[in-house]
């Protein structure tokens, strides 16, 4: 007993000695935003933020690494960040197609289908940025049980203007920073990704808002995604873990009512609050239309948002119901798009050799919109830039496109082809649709490059639309016509491209047939070549 007490005291003393001078202040916030939509869907966005006060990312040139002691910040992630001296990290794993028109802008902007990983790293030090990037994605693949390891140089690019550095630099000297960005559209988020995600939270899913993240329900939603975002701010390193889901209570209800509650959506209530959270809030964005009942009463509210606190009010089960509505009727005509810009991207043509990449941008606003457009395509397809056409209402408008950068796929040292990137700035006139089309050809893969599994086709990553700074200082004559930009990044849906695929299910037929043919041709030619020709006398 005495021994135990001594050990405990020793540990405590050591802890105090270790932590008091160096351990930064750690704070943990959790937040849930709920947005009921007019089409009956409910958008939920969980944000779990841990601030590691006073800390800064490791300078890659520093050889020795200090000890890491965290109370709230997840150690596993901290070790990875320190090992590869990552300044800024964004990882998202999403399933589904975000419908900007009906659901509006998401709370966490990274909603591209599949896995997306991008990181800013300071350059210098013994290990190159590419080496650290490889280590980082392999470490994250292990941590999150996702195939991030396949985000190799065939998918990696560095589009810095679309994914700018938002962190505060390490020191004031001009350390160069490098961006690495890769997407894997065929990656599908699953329970095996949620479990390691929840482990990063101080209260896991046992208390607090994360209590609601029941995989059975979250992974049944129309759209769901997990995100990990690390930035270094003035105050320290900020880790923000996000989970978003778009629920459809009408579907759960057999197409009848749109009433929902925590119990019906998540199959759980918040029955315990997380004791280490310094703040925990729920924001409910109340819809414009009336006729609903909300319970319980919010702790604070204004015209648009009701605020609930799961710390003071436990157990909490927010319930929203429309008592006078027997069956929910979808609004007709469908409501106007929720975002100023609607994007549609398709791959036309049904052949296995060529196609047309077609993107249409519809401006729903009364003023022009200027956006950056970024397309990162694996070397499976080759864009033919001379066929690029931009038109509005059938009239060619090349003047609406500017600052175009195109990098064709590069042959890398290891025999891989890097991705091709196309980046341009587009101005979409008010209340009109701009159509951009480029012809593309599809490659014929070597047979070793085909994956061993069932061949459904190859996914092309989503295109990204990003806000651009508008030139208002007279640099361009039509700057005033450029209007506004979009507030956040937008992602288009992914595309599936069909390449010519041999039927691998019957290799033996193919081998036998082609070998027979080869033998016949070789045998007869060899026979003719090695023979000597003579005159034979014939007596009749």
């Amino acid at each position, binding site marked *: 007993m005495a021994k135990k007490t001594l050990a405990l005291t020793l540990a405590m003393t050591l802890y105090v000695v270790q932590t008091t001078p160096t351990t930064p202040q750690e704070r943990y916030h959790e937040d849930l935003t709920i947005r009921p939509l007019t*089409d*009956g869907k409910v958008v939920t966005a969980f944000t779990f933020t841990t601030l590691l006060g006073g800390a800064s990312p490791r300078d890659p040139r520093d050889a020795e690494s200090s000890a890491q002691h965290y109370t709230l910040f997840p150690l596993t992630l901290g070790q990875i960040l320190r090992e590869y001296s990552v300044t800024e990290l964004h990882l998202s794993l999403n*399933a*589904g*197609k975000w*419908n900007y028109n009906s659901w509006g802008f998401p709370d966490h902007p990274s909603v591209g*289908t*599949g896995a997306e990983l991008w990181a800013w790293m300071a350059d210098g030090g013994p290990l190159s940025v590419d080496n650290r990037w490889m280590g980082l994605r392999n470490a994250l693949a292990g941590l999150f049980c996702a195939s991030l390891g396949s985000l190799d140089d065939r998918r990696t690019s560095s589009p810095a203007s679309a994914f700018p550095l938002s962190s505060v630099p390490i020191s004031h000297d001009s350390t160069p920073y490098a961006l690495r960005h890769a997407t894997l*559209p065929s990656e599908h988020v699953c329970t095996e990704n949620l479990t390691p995600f929840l482990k990063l939270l101080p209260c896991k899913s046992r208390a607090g808002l994360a209590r609601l993240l029941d995989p059975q329900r979250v*992974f*049944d*939603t*129309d*759209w*769901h995604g997990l995100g990990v975002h690390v930035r270094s701010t003035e105050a320290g390193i900020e880790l923000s873990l996000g989970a978003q889901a778009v629920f*459809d209570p*009408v*579907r759960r209800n*057999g*197409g009848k009512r749109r009433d929902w509650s925590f119990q019906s959506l998540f199959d759980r209530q918040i029955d315990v609050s997380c004791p280490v959270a310094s703040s925990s809030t729920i924001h409910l964005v109340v819809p414009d239309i009336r006729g609903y009942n909300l319970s319980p009463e919010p702790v604070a509210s204004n015209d648009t948002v009701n605020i609930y606190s799961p710390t003071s009010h436990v157990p909490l089960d927010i319930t929203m119901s429309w008592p006078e509505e027997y069956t929910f*009727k*979808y609004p*007709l*005509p*469908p409501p106007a798009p929720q975002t100023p810009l609607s994007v*549609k991207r*398709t791959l*036309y*043509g*049904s052949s296995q050799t060529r196609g*047309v990449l*077609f993107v249409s941008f519809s401006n729903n606003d009364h003023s022009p919109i200027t956006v950056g457009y970024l397309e990162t395509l694996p070397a499976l397809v080759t864009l033919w830039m001379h066929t690029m056409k931009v038109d509005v209402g059938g009239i060619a408008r090349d003047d609406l496109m500017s600052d175009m950068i195109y990098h064709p796929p590069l042959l890398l040292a290891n025999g891989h082809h890097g991705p091709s990137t196309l980046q341009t700035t587009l101005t979409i006139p008010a209340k009109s649709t701009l159509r951009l089309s480029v012809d593309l050809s599809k490659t014929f893969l070597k047979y070793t490059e085909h994956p061993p*599994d*069932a*061949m*459904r*086709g190859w*996914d092309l990553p989503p295109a990204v639309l990003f806000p651009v700074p508008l030139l208002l200082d007279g640099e361009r004559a039509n700057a005033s016509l450029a209007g506004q930009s979009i507030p956040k990044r937008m992602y288009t*849906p*992914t*595309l*599936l491209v*069909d390449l010519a695929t041999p*039927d691998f*299910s019957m290799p033996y037929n193919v081998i036998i047939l082609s070998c027979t043919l080869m033998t016949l041709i070789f045998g007869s030619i060899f026979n003719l070549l090695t*023979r*000597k*020709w*003579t*005159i*034979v*006398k*014939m*007596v*009749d």
Partner: protein
Amino acid sequence: MMLLPNSDCSLAESSPNSFSNLDTTVMDRIWPRRQNGNVVRLRRRKNAAALIYRNLSKITTALLATGYLWMALIPIPPLSQGVYIDENALQPAQVNTNWNWQDVHQADLYLHHLEGFRDKNATSEQRASFIRDEFAKLGLSAATQNYTFMTPSSNVSGINAYAILNSPRTSGSEAIVISASWLSEVGKEPYNLRGIATVIALAGFLKNYSLWAKDIIFVIGDNYLDGIHAWLNAYHGTIPQNLNTDLLELTSGVIWNALNIDYSGHSFSHLGVFFEGLNGRLPNQDLINSLRLISHYSAGVPLVLYDHLELHDAPQNSLLTSAPEFMKRSPQLREFEHRARNVKRHVSYQARGRPSAPHGLFHHFRIDAITLYAVPADGPHGFFALGRIIESTLRTSNNLLERLHASFFFYILTTPATFMKIGTFLPSAVLVAVAMIFSGLGQWVEAGWVQESPSELHPQGKEDDSKAANATITTVTTLQPTWRPRRRPVIPVITTICVTHCIGLLAFAMIDTSYFLQNQVVASWILLLALGLVPQALLTIIPSQPPETAPFSLLLQSFNLCLASTVISITSLLNFSLAATLAVTLGIPLICSRLFSRPSQTSTSHFSKPCQLAVYAAYWILTWGWLLLPQEVEKAVWNWEVLGVWFAPFVCIVYAPLVMQAGLVGLSQS
């Protein structure tokens, strides 16, 4: 043998021999057996070739007979085998279906509205906007599409309505289509109202499940074929010149499978499947096999081909009705007749390249699609059974991880449960083609040589003797008929062939005009007469050949047979039904075309001029007689203009010129 019919020595392969200059006796001593072996082998080879050449007509006849007999025997049961599911992922009829009476009630309500539209003769726009609004009320994104096809005869326009169910959790890069056309052309009832009602009710039902791995697209096409065709072209961004439409507002991913619903009757007893597509393409057989299992196990509905009821079910208008009683009773004959009807229907769709129902338009875009046809009857099935079958088939398609590829793409379904592999039917047409090319090559050889009787040989004997003297062994040629090579002028023949094909092209250009289609009866007769006279005129232009060269008709027939045989062999791989039809129509007429030709003035004529003209008239009717089938011509031209079916140009540019050449062979002097 044919090339060197009378030479004493010939080139032959032998073992390494550097002593060819040595004395023959020495050579014989060194390699006596070897040398003999070479001679024996050469002689054997020559004899074999001589045997084939001597019996060429017998061989040709045997090949032709085998080919035609094989074709006739296609419906016999031993040539077919049982169908089976090849793709493991499909797992047909393994799910519990949820479609219920509540959904049937919804379908009934939609049907009530649609009947209202039918009764008040609503416009396309009213119908399409109603359907679009119904989709939108279900919470789906829905839109309409206006289209106009410009054809020589008239403009075809309409409005399609479609909706996309963005399946939860999916990236939306793959899709399945469920479609229905406003009209139905199979049964008596012209409107496919129940089919459309089923599709809308299904939309409301399917959106309540999160298990779909692909987007589901619902398409209601206007008219019968052109609506779906316009929609598919707009979806894939391949809008042809004569189609006036805009790109679709809503799109989804790559479409792998499509089901087209045709339910025009009141109730149904059997579910029929239509599968022939545009230009004779067939869907993967797994799709049909899955449907057969699903319809049997999930709803207890027997699957039949087309609207042909099962053998034991109905006294269909049978060929056997006028047959003697014992034949009527024979189960083998009845089975044969049942299968023959299915094959005949299949060939009539595939040879014409016409889609048998709207699903066939999907095949053009590499989408496996079939039409589910509810065979009209007094009962017992309705929306309930059909909904279950479609739901289960969708679940099966939903299981696919890759495109359907495992099962067959080339097959003939003799009954829903039995099919023929390509190896059991393709040889029939190929045998006929082989007979034709043998016959053509035989003619080519014949054209190259002229036989001379010994008496004729004497004046030239001096030269031959001196040649023969050079050979070590003198042959006794004077007693045998000798062969003398002659020139084969091919330029006039090739020109004639090119001109006939150009005439075909011109004829097609004329048929494909609005003027022709508007005054079809008169224009057909004028064109028919003109096309009958043109070859006559053509023959007069051809310069007469000097008598020592090969006759024109012989060479023309040789080329004609080789060309026709090539066409049949190539077509047989792409579209067996068309190849078989060609083999039947071309085989005997082309091989026999020279039998009726007028022999040269020197020998006695065994065919009089009028008789020869009558034969020519028969060929002429075989070539262009179809012009007198106005409906067929109009339909074929419409199919070419709107759907891009190759049948009309193929007949005009390939088939007709081939028969025309055969007619010329008969008409020209030999």
